């Protein structure tokens, strides 16, 4: 059992990180903490993808100057899979833009309500709603 956890420790870390991020997104009341939660969640996914590509003793997936030299050196088992890394480059771009949009919206909210606490915002919204009636 212990071996099972230890040998796949990167996947366990991914699950723990994902749960921490998920909890922060759903459970935390502060909007900035929610945004940090989003980031932890997405970082966990990056860890997952990169872990799936990793191999013990694997080398760079570049044919030239590789071990054994030349095109005959292509041997899937000894190379780290580059595709998940490439996918994650795109995912990082998405992550950064999400962060940007989220922070911009948080600034808008702060200007309007002068707070970033969700319950205080809801309180103010309820109050202004009643005033309108």
């Amino acid at each position, binding site marked *: 059992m212990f071996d099972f956890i230890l040998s796949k420790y990167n996947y366990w870390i991914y699950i723990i990180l994902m749960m921490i991020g998920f909890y922060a997104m759903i459970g935390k009341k502060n909007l900035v903490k929610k945004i940090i939660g989003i980031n932890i969640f997405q970082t966990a996914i990056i860890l997952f993808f990169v872990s799936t590509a990793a191999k013990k003793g694997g080398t760079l997936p570049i044919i030239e100057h590789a071990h054994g030299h030349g095109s005959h050196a292509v041997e899937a088992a000894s190379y780290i899979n580059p595709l998940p890394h490439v996918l994650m480059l795109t995912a990082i771009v998405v992550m950064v833009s*999400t962060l940007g949009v989220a922070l911009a*919206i948080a600034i*808008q909210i702060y200007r309007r309500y002068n707070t970033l606490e969700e319950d205080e915002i809801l309180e103010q919204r309820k109050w202004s709603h009643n005033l309108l009636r």
Partner: protein
Amino acid sequence: MVPQSPALVVVVPLISAFLTLLLGWWRKGLSYPITIIALSLSFLASMHCLYTVLTTGTIHYYLGTWEPPWGIEYVVDHLNGFILVIVSFVSLMVAISSRRVVEKELPEKIVYFYTLFLLQVTGFLGIVITGDMFNLYVFLEIASLAGYALIAVGEDGAPFASFNYLIFGTIGACFYLLGVGYLYISTGSLNMADLAEILPALYQSKVLMVAFAFFLVGVSLKMALFPLHVWLPDAYTYAPSAVSALLAPLMTKVGAYVMIRILFTVFEPRFSMELIPATTILGWMAAGAILFGALLALAQSDVKRMLAYILVGEVGYIALGVGLANRNGLTGAILHILNDSIMMLALFLIVAAIMYRSGNREIPSLRYMHRRMPFTMATLVIAGLSVIGIPPTCGFFSKWYLVLGSIDANKWVFVAVLLISSLLNVILFFRVIENAYLEPREEEAHEGVEAVVAIEEAPLSLLLPILIAGAGILSLGVLSGEIIASVIRFAIPAGF
């Protein structure tokens, strides 16, 4: 031009988005015509795609001539060719209608509005046309990010609603991405057609079940399927009128398309129906959505908010058709994607027109509206009848197929749910129509100023799309037999 049309569908709005931004800094007035031209070209290209599919069969377009399992492939078959035309048509109509509305609601931000608008449409079209799982994720995020920003510039309360949407949307997209990752580690492929060939041998694997669960939850979040709809009513109520008119008809429909693709093309129907009872669960969630959406819509006094809850119910109809998983049910679902897009387009544009003229959306304030805006209100009646499901309008036909599908599947509960929701919709729309059409009672009329209300229709750029949508609701109803016979019959995934 001609063999490149699948790429042009997506590339034209994408490049125009940047063009709008650059030329908009120079001349603000250019952004509207650029948007219209770009979306018209995109509409023509998608029409051409559908025409090619109908005459010669499925199109496979290899981007950069990289062949499928390695490169990204655009695939247009009957299903997504059909939805491409819907998406590009609806977005063109909303773009035409947006001219005066945006000038009034967002006078400072016209250029940025059209840039984001085009990016949003690019996202929708990309999701529909792509044949690659990861590419779909990227387009999903383009559409969502543009959507968060567009919603956030709305009226008071919009930024907060948009933030909630962002949290839910990000969870949905991340779950989808995890699903893609689990599929990739078990198959080593990201191409949908390739996955569909490799997967059947692995159907017993637990990894696939996890991937499938991630996809189902992630896509349900994006399409706002009950009980994961909580972000939708606030976001679509507070968004600027033109944005709700774009997002409400399309975002949920594109989500429904992704669901059909994953359930029945990437995985075989056998997997989604028998190995995991996903379609059964989906059916019950959909029944909940239909009832819950209609009931909560009853409690609203704001027309736009009421429509948002009706939309939750309409998503339920599509999901119900998918959940029934038989020929009639899927015909109903795919037909409802078309019908509901047009209905929601008409209804949200009408709300935009009411907001433009009176600045108030409460139902009681609709008094005398039929005198001020006779054409708009006539379209409201047509669209309302269609949502209820009265025969000559298109809404009747998709509901008819859904009822037939429920009977085929021997699920009489769903038949009852469909009928009850029609009755609830009758109450909903007659409440609106009563306020808009009936004269105030006599004592009220004596108190108030005598009703001399001049005709004050919506501006032509807004009225024209409303009338086209209204005519569309009627003509799609009349032509629904033809549409089913020539397109939808072939669009139903293999295995039914």
